């Protein structure tokens, strides 16, 4: 695969938390536009920290992040975040939750509700507009979280282990939907996971991070031929299995 234009760039990013814990050290990387980029590593390697620095939610201690040619100094409309714990407003129904990003931008109610309804329909949640989060399953809640991120029409979707709290069937279904989404919309996805299989299956580029302090250990381009093949065939593909094995050979040294 040809290296595409970088939409997100990290230059020498480091993060030391109050109390002296060094979470990230000198991370430099370039993430391509319109591709699915994964940050992969063992727990505590600072991958979520890195994602939140890119999101502008946490300031880096050292170095800088550039998004679409602009230095990041906070959250911005070109980035939308999908949270591991869904982060839905418990007092708001699905419609209002999906429209929440637009509400914060001051979009008039009718307009934002229209946009939200479209996203709800695309997420397969039609009929649940007036349900509350506690009435939904984990999988459905994450669909709401994803629909909310898509509703603001950001170029970059940042996903923090979005499928960690849903069951395996739902997880695989989500993976297919995510790939489908990328084929149809020109979104750049930055995806955090600790699952080697998930990273290999989904990604155009995998950034492998070493444990604390997190540094870039290796960058892998899986280059898996997808065209027309079903998920099970891909999972038996030699190339796929080789990449999984290659990552495991590196990661197993980090397991204590």
């Amino acid at each position: 695969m040809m290296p595409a234009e970088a939409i997100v760039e990290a230059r020498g990013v480091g993060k030391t938390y109050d109390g002296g814990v060094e979470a990230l050290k000198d991370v430099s990387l370039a993430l391509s536009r319109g591709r699915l980029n994964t940050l992969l590593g063992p727990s505590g390697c600072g991958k979520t920290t890195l994602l939140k620095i890119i999101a502008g939610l946490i300031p880096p201690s050292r170095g800088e992040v550039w998004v679409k040619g602009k230095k990041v100094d906070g959250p911005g409309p070109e980035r939308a975040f999908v949270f591991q714990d869904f982060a839905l407003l418990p007092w708001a129904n699905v419609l209002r939750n999906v429209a929440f990003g637009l509400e914060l931008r001051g979009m008039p109610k009718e307009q934002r509700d229209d946009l939200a309804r479209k996203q709800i329909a695309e997420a397969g949640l039609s009929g649940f507009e007036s349900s509350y989060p506690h009435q939904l399953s984990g999988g459905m809640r994450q669909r709401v979280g994803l629909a909310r991120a898509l509703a603001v029409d950001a170029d970059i979707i940042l996903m923090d282990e979005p499928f960690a709290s849903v069951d395996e069937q739902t997880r695989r279904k989500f993976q297919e939907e995510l790939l489908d989404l990328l084929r149809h919309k020109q979104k750049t996805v930055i995806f955090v996971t600790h699952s080697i299989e998930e990273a290999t299956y989904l990604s155009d580029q995998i950034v492998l991070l070493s444990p604390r302090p997190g540094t870039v250990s290796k960058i892998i381009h899986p280059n898996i031929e997808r065209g027309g093949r079903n998920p099970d065939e891909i999972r038996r593909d030699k190339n796929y299995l080789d990449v999984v094995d290659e990552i495991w050979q590196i990661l197993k040294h980090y397991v204590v």
Partner: protein
Amino acid sequence: MTLFGKKIPIFFSLVIWFIVWELIGQAKLSTIIPPFSRVVVAGITILPTEKFSTAASISLRSFAIGMAFALVTGIPIGVMMARVESLSKILGMWVNIFVSAPISALVPILMAVVGIGETTVVVTVLLFAVFVIILDTQVGIKQADKSLVEMARSFGARRYQIYTKVLLLSALPEILAGVRLGAIRGVKGVVIGQLLIAILGVGELFELYSKHFLMEEFWALVIIVFMFAFTVSEAIASLERYVEYYASTR
């Protein structure tokens, strides 16, 4: 409550106590306890009098103004204490002292400072109600889900939007609990304030009845004040239940 395997309504226990009261009263054990039936009659006779309605409206006004001040100052102070660490360090100890301190003891000092009149009662209500509202608001905001705040920030929320659209709504069940407890204390504040001043509202009536040993009227007034406090508390509690319904998964 169940009796002989049957569910009986809660007011039934009140009925039993009223019967006991009636019997003690009829037995003429003490002049302080007249029979319950005579208290009810006294209540019915004092309710329509002009003296009562004037007293009640003065008391209600002091209560309403004092509570309004308690809400307008208590909630913002609670929010700020939850968000600003240094403020919580400076004020936290004082709030905790005052929430349990006998405020009644301060009323005579208040009289010396702000004079003997309605203002003293209003300030008493404020002091009785405000600290528990501060404390509960602070707890509610502190317990608000951090990831909701982060979510709002990630979608570009401004600072005021984080307060109005996330933090305050998230803390609403705790804030309402504080307001309910504050209102109950506020009723106490009105009565105690007016009793100590003894020339105003319901307090004046209490003073009048006890001085002239009108025990039937005295008890009737106690019951009326109690019923008022109970109604206010139940009204806020029903609002709380409604809020908790949709905030049930926090």
